[in-house]
């Protein structure tokens, strides 16, 4: 698992991020100068979290507490992903490397890393995050600087790139693994409930996503526990 292989695998994510963060740049440029908008992307590397954060910043009544709570709930899924990724990394992926590379745990980079057949090395993971990071930062920069020129028709279309990438990650697994199909359908049903059931409409978007994912994944784990296909032989000798 080389650095260069990671860079190569990260290219599609980087391209997708460029398109998505372009629309973030446009949104941010409405009330922040372009260096400030770009710096948000460089320090956060999140999609939904940044969009929510931007809304709180733009809101004159927005508070730091609100920012902390919203960020926490919207991005809490990264903790789940970090736990999941920690099960998949190579033994020499040490504490210092983890502190350095933790920022790379995004929906797509994480999904790509854990879908690898081999344990993930620090080199590979670092390579994997290079182009997405550059794409995300430079896309924001371009969006903030020149986005005003483009009509809403084009920026709306670019904004959908993010969801297209999500679909491209989820659908192949749904096709290959029936229990994942069921878990995903449960998550979607739950997500619709938060959108349309009046009693649940007060729940924030970030919190709704977490509840949907928890419920669907818990049901999946309870009824369709996965096989140890990704477990390397070094573990099986010890016995579970």
């Amino acid at each position, binding site marked *: 698992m080389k650095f260069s292989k990671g860079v190569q695998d990260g290219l599609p994510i980087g391209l997708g991020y460029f398109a998505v963060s372009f629309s973030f740049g446009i949104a941010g440029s409405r009330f922040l100068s372009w260096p400030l908008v770009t710096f948000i992307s460089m320090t956060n590397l999140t999609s939904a979290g940044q969009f929510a954060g931007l809304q709180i910043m733009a809101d004159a009544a927005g508070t730091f507490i609100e920012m902390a709570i919203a960020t926490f709930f919207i991005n809490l899924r990264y903790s789940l992903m970090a736990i999941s990724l920690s099960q998949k990394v190579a033994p020499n992926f040490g504490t210092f490397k983890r502190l350095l590379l933790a920022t790379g745990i995004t929906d797509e980079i994480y999904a790509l890393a854990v879908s690898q057949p081999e344990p993930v090395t620090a080199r590979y993971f670092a390579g994997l995050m290079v182009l997405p990071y550059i794409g995300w930062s430079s896309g924001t920069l371009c969006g903030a600087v020149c986005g005003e020129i483009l009509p809403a028709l084009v920026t*709306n279309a670019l904004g959908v790139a993010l969801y297209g990438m999500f679909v491209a990650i989820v659908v192949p697994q749904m096709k290959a693994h029936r229990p994942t199909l069921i878990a995903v359908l449960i998550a979607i049903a739950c997500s619709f409930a938060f959108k349309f059931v009046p009693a649940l409409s007060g729940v924030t978007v970030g919190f709704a996503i977490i509840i949907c994912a928890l419920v669907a994944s818990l049901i999946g784990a309870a009824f369709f526990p996965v096989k140890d296909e990704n477990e390397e032989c070094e573990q099986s000798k010890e016995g579970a």
Partner: protein
Amino acid sequence: MNLRDYCLFLLVMAGVTYLLRAVPFVLLKGKIKSRFWRSFLAYVPYTVLAAMTVPAILYSTNSMLSGACALVAAVIASLLGRGLVGVAVVACVTVLGVDGIMLLL
């Protein structure tokens, strides 16, 4: 908004996000033994992404129609074996096409 407020907001946002990623990543060094929790974690990425995408994609464009078309087109493209960029492009072009046609009508 003044620069000081911006810096504080940014610090809170970036700080919380980093800690959410780094703390569990650093603390968990061994393998989780429980098959249940390993299964749970295997499902998490897909259920998270699904919940983030549906129904949000329907509200991300000019009309629910273009959002729905983008979702269907993306699923079909993915089933046909297109990769990350291919599917994203299909979704973008679909929205552009549907919204474009609706503007003309």
